[in-house]
């Protein structure tokens, strides 16, 4: 397959996707899902079993972090390698489309630098392991008082910068960038979850559920997660301001439960484990509170939309089939309506697979 894709003149083709047992929920897809899920279970709850593997990474870890490897370094390395290798596959596959080339290169660079090398180097110089590409509420603890107060009030210039970076990105950059470019500036250009979904997850994008029922579940779930993390963050701040309050003991317990259910089980085990079965955006669509915030901004306070070109739509359904977020793009396109959906991550694949040039991502 890859050789064919390398040799054909233009490569954006999906020949045989629906007959592929790997790509369309055959037995091998279930095997892959088991493999991915199993890896996450081991990393999160049985890290010692992976010891022989991360011992292999000790030399690299010593260079980058100045300490021996652990399961998190193994995880980060596997993740980054997956993004880079499958990113190269993306670059080859979509090589006629500059939009995909630019965003894939950006995702690869952000993953390699901001999510892998820089946090490791920060550890090496004895600073704080910090990810410049993650913000509240995807990384809720970054806005917790224990973190943010310490950073902002720090004497260390670097730590202080991290504090102000977090606040600036969360409060200023997120709404401003989303207003101008839609949530895609983050989900399809910066985010690490997006980076893995857009590279390693690309072969599975057609497995997302497009039914109205799935859309309904998605809205309930993703906004419930957002409401929960807003509540948890509120509790933590309340407990910090008034440690004698009766709710104080529950605040950190709530955060622990959230971290286990949402941070580990949902975003990791299910989010990546179910790639081959439900498409690569299970977490982004049903669980990510950052996506929920960006989605609300995109729907109600953004210039971004996918525009429909007059009456050229032939209702073929390529756009809906290959939408990783499960948006029934065709339902809008065939009525000549613009698409302005909270969940759209602006990957641009609907416009690429459209055989009649009907769709275009625009910032009106």
């Amino acid at each position, binding site marked *: 397959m890859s050789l064919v894709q390398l040799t054909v003149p233009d490569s954006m083709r999906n020949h045989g996707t629906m007959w592929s047992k790997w790509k369309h929920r055959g037995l091998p897809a279930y095997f892959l899902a088991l493999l991915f899920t199993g890896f996450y279970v081991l990393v999160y709850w049985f890290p010692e079993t992976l010891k022989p593997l991360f011992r292999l990474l000790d030399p690299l870890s010593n260079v980058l972090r100045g300490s021996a490897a652990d399961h998190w370094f193994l995880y980060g390395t596997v993740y980054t390698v997956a993004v880079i290798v499958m990113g190269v596959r993306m670059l080859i596959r979509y090589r006629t489309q500059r939009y995909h080339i630019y965003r894939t290169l950006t995702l690869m660079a952000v993953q390699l630098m901001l999510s892998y090398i820089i946090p490791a180097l920060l550890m090496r110089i004895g600073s704080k392991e910090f990810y410049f590409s993650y913000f509240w509420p995807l990384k809720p603890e970054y806005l917790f008082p224990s973190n943010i107060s310490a950073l902002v009030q720090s004497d260390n210039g670097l730590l202080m910068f991290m504090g102000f970076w977090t606040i600036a990105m969360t409060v200023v950059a997120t709404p401003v960038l989303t207003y101008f470019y839609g949530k895609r500036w983050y989900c399809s250009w910066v985010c690490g979850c997006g980076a893995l979904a857009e590279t390693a997850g690309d072969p599975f994008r057609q497995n997302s559920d497009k039914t109205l029922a799935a859309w309904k579940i998605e809205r309930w779930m993703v906004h419930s997660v957002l409401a929960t993390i807003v509540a948890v963050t509120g509790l933590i701040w309340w407990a910090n301001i008034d440690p004698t309050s009766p709710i104080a003991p529950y605040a950190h317990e709530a955060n622990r439960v959230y971290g286990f259910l949402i941070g580990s089980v949902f975003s990791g085990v299910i989010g990546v484990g179910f790639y081959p079965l439900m498409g690569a955006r299970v977490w982004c669509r049903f669980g990510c509170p950052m996506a929920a915030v960006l989605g609300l901004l995109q729907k109600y306070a953004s210039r971004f939309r996918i525009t429909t070109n*007059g009456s050229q739509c032939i209702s073929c359904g390529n756009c809906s089939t290959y939408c990783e977020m499960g948006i029934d793009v065709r339902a809008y396109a065939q009525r000549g309506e613009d698409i302005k959906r909270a969940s759209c991550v602006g990957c641009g694949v609907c416009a690429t697979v459209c055989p009649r040039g009907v769709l275009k991502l625009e910032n009106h």
Partner: protein
Amino acid sequence: MRIVIIGNGVAGITAARYLRKFSDHEIIVVSDEAPYHFSRPAMMYVSMGHMTLDQTKPYEDGFWKKNRIELVHDAVTSIGHAEGPYRSVELRSGSSIDADIIVFATGSQPAWYNWQGEHLPGVQGYVNKHDLDLLERNLVGTRNAVVVGGGLIGIEAAEVLHSRGLHVSMLVRESTFYRKVFPADESEMVTEHIARSGVDLRCGTNLERIVAGDNAARVDHVVTSSGESIRADLVVLATGVKPRIDLAQMSGIAVSRGILVTDRFETSVPNIYAIGDCAEFDHGVEQLWYTARAHGEHLARVITQGDGAYARGIYFNSAKFFDLEWQIYGTVPADSTDGTSVFWRDATSERCLRIAHNHGTVIGIHAIGIRLRQDVCERWIRKGQSAAVATKEIQSAIFDPEFSRKVTI
């Protein structure tokens, strides 16, 4: 009032949708092709494995019940007279539906020209669900295919067969691909592209006859107009389509090439209408996806609101030749020259654009490898924009993805 629509292609389904939108009439759609409406232009994507047939259905199955549109999966055998003003639609299953209004949306069927051997096993068309299913059976153990016809269906069939690993020869009557529609530059660009995609493209070649193998069980080769034999265990005849009129003709409705209709889609029999590919107007037939959709919508207005004549808007169409997208708005004559059009061809990629004009006034725009904005192109054509201004302001008409290379006409 009960309205029975015969055919669940885009014309019939669009009529049903708009009739529901504008009225409370009882709506029944009868089709023997498929239980649910699917997108006919998407057939090729099913054959290439890009989509399942289910995914080509533009509406979820629950849509029809929710909108009180009854779907009947059966063949209509005849139209009879029932009591009073009603007519009855007789079905193959033996049941019958009384109707106040009947709409023919029976579409079209392949037009073949009585070639010797055209009924051999392994010879087929590629226009409906039957052909889609037949192709899968015909592909078993097949290695060499011949596609006859250099139109939009022919190129789709060639791409499908090529994607399935077959050696594909394509017989095209014209000297270069689609030359009767395209000016020479565009035709040559697409011809080169098809050949480079791996199809054995034979221009200026007609089909002479189709020949069976020794035991006459299946096609073995075709003979071309130049007397050459080409091996083929599969032949797709894509030499155009003709309106499907058998049922209308049997029912005593006036037909010629298609079912004869007024500009309000009225046939020769009161309360029977015809829309889509099967309808023939004074100016001829209109056999496009877009016109079928427009007919359906306008018919609903005629029936529910007594609207007047249907008038086709500014012509537009689009297609894809392997990886090359093509869009057209208005009229771009095949004999366009430097004197009657502004032409731009990218030096480094397969992209070109032509603005056809009549003494400096834009009459049509088409592009290959470039996406154009329909509203801008139509506005220019409608108001008679000057070709010089259109050329200068061409960026406002480009619909290419972000970061695409600029059109520097």
